[in-house]
């Protein structure tokens, strides 16, 4: 089997072998064992290169026979590098193995190329997360309410994991929502208006909660590398509220 792949993670295995976690176009996330070349030429693959990988085996652990880069290298440093580690951690923790997800491969490719171009990182990560959620069938609905009504720009909503959006009229909610959001901001999120500060701020808060629930509270370690900015905007009943500006 020949696949296009990015190396997401490596672990030492036996003396001259390593375990590779590969994000492939053809087979999604796969794990393989690779025998390192002889000592003088020993290089651990990685570094955001797209490889052409020849592998075999039917089980969960493939044998990687050859691995050749098919692209010139990308050099990432500092914050963009941390952002990639974050993306890798999400992929490892959310993706099932051996399930073809070609759009996630393309999404990852887009992310690392964009990170190299030096644009703002937060909108890139939020778009990456949206893409990941939607490809995995875990997308967040910000265009209609839990009951299927279209979101109105002038209405204020409360958002719960289970029930999604629900119109909010100032009552004390029975269950504490994750956040309150103006319809206009929710629709901006749905439309991907990543230049809008409120939309970006909503996405950050929303995705953080969404990821925590998808991972049932398992920590995302690489968050510790990204800039820490706890939510400082307006709150209602102690819960973040995102108003259209």
């Amino acid at each position, binding site marked *: 089997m020949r696949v296009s792949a990015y190396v*997401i*993670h*490596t*672990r030492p295995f*036996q*003396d*001259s072998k390593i375990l590779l*976690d590969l994000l492939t176009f053809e087979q999604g996330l796969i794990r393989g064992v690779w025998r390192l070349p002889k000592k*003088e*030429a020993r*290089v*651990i693959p*990685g*570094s*955001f*290169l797209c490889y052409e990988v020849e592998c075999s085996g039917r089980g969960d652990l493939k044998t990687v026979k050859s691995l050749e*880069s098919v*692209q*010139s*290298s990308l*050099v990432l*440093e*500092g914050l963009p*590098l*941390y952002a*990639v*580690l*974050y993306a*890798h*951690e999400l992929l*490892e923790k959310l993706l099932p193995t051996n399930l073809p997800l070609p759009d996630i491969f393309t999404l990852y490719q887009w992310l690392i190329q964009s990170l190299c171009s030096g644009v703002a990182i937060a909108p890139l990560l939020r778009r990456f997360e949206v893409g990941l959620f939607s490809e995995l069938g875990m997308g967040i609905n910000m265009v209609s309410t839990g009951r299927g009504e279209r979101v109105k720009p002038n209405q204020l909503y409360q958002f719960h994991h289970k029930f999604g959006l629900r119109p909010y009229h100032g009552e004390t909610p029975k269950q504490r929502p994750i956040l309150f959001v103006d319809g206009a901001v929710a629709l901006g999120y749905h439309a991907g208006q990543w230049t809008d500060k409120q939309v970006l701020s909503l996405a950050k808060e929303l995705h953080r909660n969404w990821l925590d629930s998808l991972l049932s509270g398992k*920590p*995302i*370690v*690489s968050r*510790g*590398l990204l800039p820490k900015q706890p939510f400082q905007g307006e709150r209602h009943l102690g819960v973040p509220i995102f108003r259209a500006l």
Partner: protein
Amino acid sequence: MFSPLIKELIESLRCLPGVGPRSAQKMALYLLERDHQGADRLANALREALDKVGRCSSCRTLTEETECQLCQDPDRDAKSLCIVETPADVVAIESAGSFKGRYFVLLGHLSPIDGIGPEELGLDRLEILVQHNQVEEAIIATNSTVEGEATCHYIAEKLKTLNINVSRIAHGVPMGGELEYVDGNTLALALEGRKKL
């Protein structure tokens, strides 16, 4: 086929890197059959090393003393510090013979997927050492992997706040290497770190 004690010996030898079931069996039989004295010495050395070898209180490399020999050596420049991932890296740099400062062993690198974030790296120890020894120059010699680079960057940011010179060992074409066989990434880095002649 083997009695429980022999089986256990074979199984325990397999924890060594590169030792499969066949070679473990060979080793066990060799020790029991042909080299009792050697086996006895091995067993004692292993026991003693396990009991006594710990980490150097200053650089964290392996040693049975409180402070390792390198850290005790008055001829080594305490103001110059080389930061590496493992004790094996200390040995590698020492064998190159050109570095005359001291070391700090990270005992790993940032690897969020394996649960190692900035907090797990124990950089507070590094900061204490830097301040205590009044380090003026830090050379970061982490591996040139994605995780090694991230670790390097993270440490560099930390150390810069302490007002010391921070540098990173260069990556490049290996000695005797032919360009044709060097991968693109290494070449890109080698170009980036080029030297004026």
